[in-house]
Every structure is written in structure tokens, then in C-alpha cells.
């Protein structure tokens, strides 16, 4: 499939964000921005929608990744891939109640993140 897709990374751990960015760029994706809070993610989407968002749950500020996803759903149904260190049943349930979302758990392997991104972009 074509790799010329735009991805927004929302992650407050700089190292994790940096690695994800590098891996996705190496795989041919375009990273529109790397932001660390939910509100920045929503603002970025209001300016220009990416093709996919890669987002953590716990972020800087009050707004969680799940809150941000609900806000983004008001303007778009774009695919969101959550990567999180938090895999309890309640969080999982909350994420899966949002349409067009998937979860992968940290630490994330490069191959896994690329496969999930590819699959989400293929079905959308």
C-alpha cells in the first residue's frame, strides 16, 4: 500500500515519541506533528486532519487520550491507534467504545506498530 499518509503522534514521553516518529518516517509515513497533550491533539485536528493518530492515554494536562478521542470524533472518524502502558479492563472498554480505534501496549515493537498502522489505514 502507499505509505504517503499523514500521522499525528500524541505522546508525553519524549523518548517513546521520538522512536515512534523515527520508525514511522523510516517506513515512509509523514509525521504532521508530535504533541504531548490532548488539547494540542484536538487543536491539530481542527487545523488539518491527519490520516491517523497515534496516541497515548495518559498525557500532559487534564485531558486524557480517551477524552481527546471523544472530542476529535465530533469532527472526524479518522482511525486512532492508542498505545498505552495501561491495559486494565476499564480503560480497554472505554477505548473500544470509541469507533475506529485500536490498542497496542507499551513497550511497542516497531513491527507491531507498523502492522497496526497499515491495517487501520487499509480499512479506512
Amino acid at each position: 500500500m502507499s505509505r504517503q499518509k499523514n500521522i499525528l503522534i500524541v505522546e508525553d514521553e519524549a523518548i517513546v515519541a521520538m522512536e515512534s516518529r523515527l520508525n514511522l518516517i523510516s517506513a515512509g509515513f509523514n509525521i504532521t506533528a508530535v504533541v504531548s497533550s490532548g488539547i494540542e491533539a484536538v487543536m491539530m485536528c481542527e487545523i488539518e486532519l491527519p490520516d491517523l493518530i497515534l496516541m497515548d492515554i495518559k498525557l500532559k494536562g487534564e485531558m486524557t487520550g480517551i477524552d481527546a478521542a471523544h472530542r476529535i470524533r465530533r469532527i472526524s472518524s479518522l482511525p486512532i491507534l492508542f498505545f498505552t502502558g495501561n491495559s486494565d479492563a476499564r480503560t480497554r472498554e472505554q477505548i473500544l467504545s470509541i469507533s475506529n480505534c485500536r490498542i497496542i501496549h507499551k513497550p511497542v515493537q516497531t513491527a507491531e506498530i507498523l502492522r497496526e498502522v497499515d491495517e487501520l489505514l487499509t480499512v479506512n
Partner: protein
Amino acid sequence: MTEEQLVGRFGLDLHKNYPSEKERAEMRLAIAGTGTYQSEVLYKTGKGNEFWGSLALREISIRGSKFHIVRVTDITAQHESNEKVKSALHEKEVLLAEIHHRVKNNLAVVSGLLGLQATYVKDEQARSLFEESRSRIHSMAIIHDKLYQHETFATIDFSSYINDLVSHIKKLYNNIGTKVSFEIVCNDIYLDIKNAVPCGLILNELISNSFKHAFPGREEGLVKIVCTRMGERFTMMVSDDGVGYDMDKALQNPTSLGLTLISALAGQVNGNLKTTFHQGTAFYLSFEV
């Protein structure tokens, strides 16, 4: 409250919150069954103050008429103390959950650092060593994730852990050209972090070894993982139906970090190690938990 104020009133009228129909039905059921009823109730005094009382009620019969003997003991101090303990426990649980979450996130950062460093390495073999290290870190991160999910924060469901670990390693080796199936038997076994970490790391090495070396040129392969617990004795068996190799000999004189780790970690849990290599390789580890 004076005698005059009390006589002629129902006991329930003294409750701060009048019991619901369901609560009253439960009281009636208890009295009809055992002739007694006990509960902790928030009462109101004649002056409108509140206190927690331990209510003990017994039904007696005098000349065919039923009466209730009621004793209420002021337990406000004890109740407040219990509430403080409950609150402290809840706070401890929240903190423990946060710590496990933080540890897992920190392991993700360490894994990310190795991943970033690997991007500056040109040699393919050296890069694969970075991936192996990341896999070891991941096998520990899953344990903290499981501890975070488990309500006591003390032990993990080892079966659930094995399934997650296998699923993770499968993704790493999905390009080897062999379809590797797994049979996992591990019923109702819980391990604490002291034992789960070494067992997880050993499993990571053994499963990765099977993927890397056991099935050259094969379309399909099978890996079995069986864990049992008899009293305090935990046994873990990992076998594959691959080419088989003398792991005993290799463990005596390890030539790779993986084998060195298996040997060291088995020693850490004071485990007995045994391996066989007939129709594949089998590894047995048992120790007191």
C-alpha cells in the same frame, strides 16, 4: 434522650437515614430466621447529633407475645478508625497502581532508547541484539502490567502472562517462514514478582530459541508450555518438536547471553534444571515458591 422521649417510638425512627423497604425486608428475614439481627447504624440523638451504633436485636416471646430486646453500643470512634484504615488502604492501592504503571512506562522508555540507538547501528546482527534486549525488557514490562491489573498488586496470573508473552514473541518472529503453534497448560497458578520476573525472562529466552533454531526449513512447529504447582513446588516445562539440541551441555558452557541468563535465573530461584533432546528439546525447571 430521655425515657419520655423514647417510650412509644419505633427504633427505626432513631436512624439517621430511615431504612429502605429492601433493608427492612432483610431485617425481617434475619429475625424470622435466627431470631436475631446485627448491624452498624448511623443514629441521631435527641439534640440532632449523629453517632454510629452497633445494633444487636433479639426477638423473645413472653406469654405468646413477641418482643424485641435491642442493644445499641456507641462505636463512633471505632467506625471512624475503620474508615481511616479503609481510606489509607485505598490510597496505598492507588499509589501501588501508579508505581506499576510508572515502572511499565519507564521500561517503555528504556526500550525506546534501545530502539533509537539501534537505528544508528548498521550491522544487521548487532541490530538483532538490540531487538533481543528489547524483548527481554518487554517480558518484564508485561509483569508490571499484570500486577497493575491484579487487585492485590502482589501476584500475577501466570497463564495470562504466558499468553501475552507468547503473543508478543510471535509478532517478533512472524517472518521466519514457519507457522509455530503453542500449547499452553497453566491452570490457576499465581506467582509473585520475585519468581515471575526470572520465570518470564527464562520463558522469553526459551521461546525465542525455539523460533530461531528449532524449525529450520519446516512449515510448521509446535511449542508446549506446561506449568504445574504441587503444594509449594512450581514446575515449568517448555518443549518444542524441532531439531533438538543438547541444552544441558550448552548451559554448562554457555556461548550466548540467552543461555547464560537461563542458567543464572534458574540459580536465582534455587531451581532444579533438567533438559532432554529426544524428538525436539525439552526444558524443565522446578523450585519452591
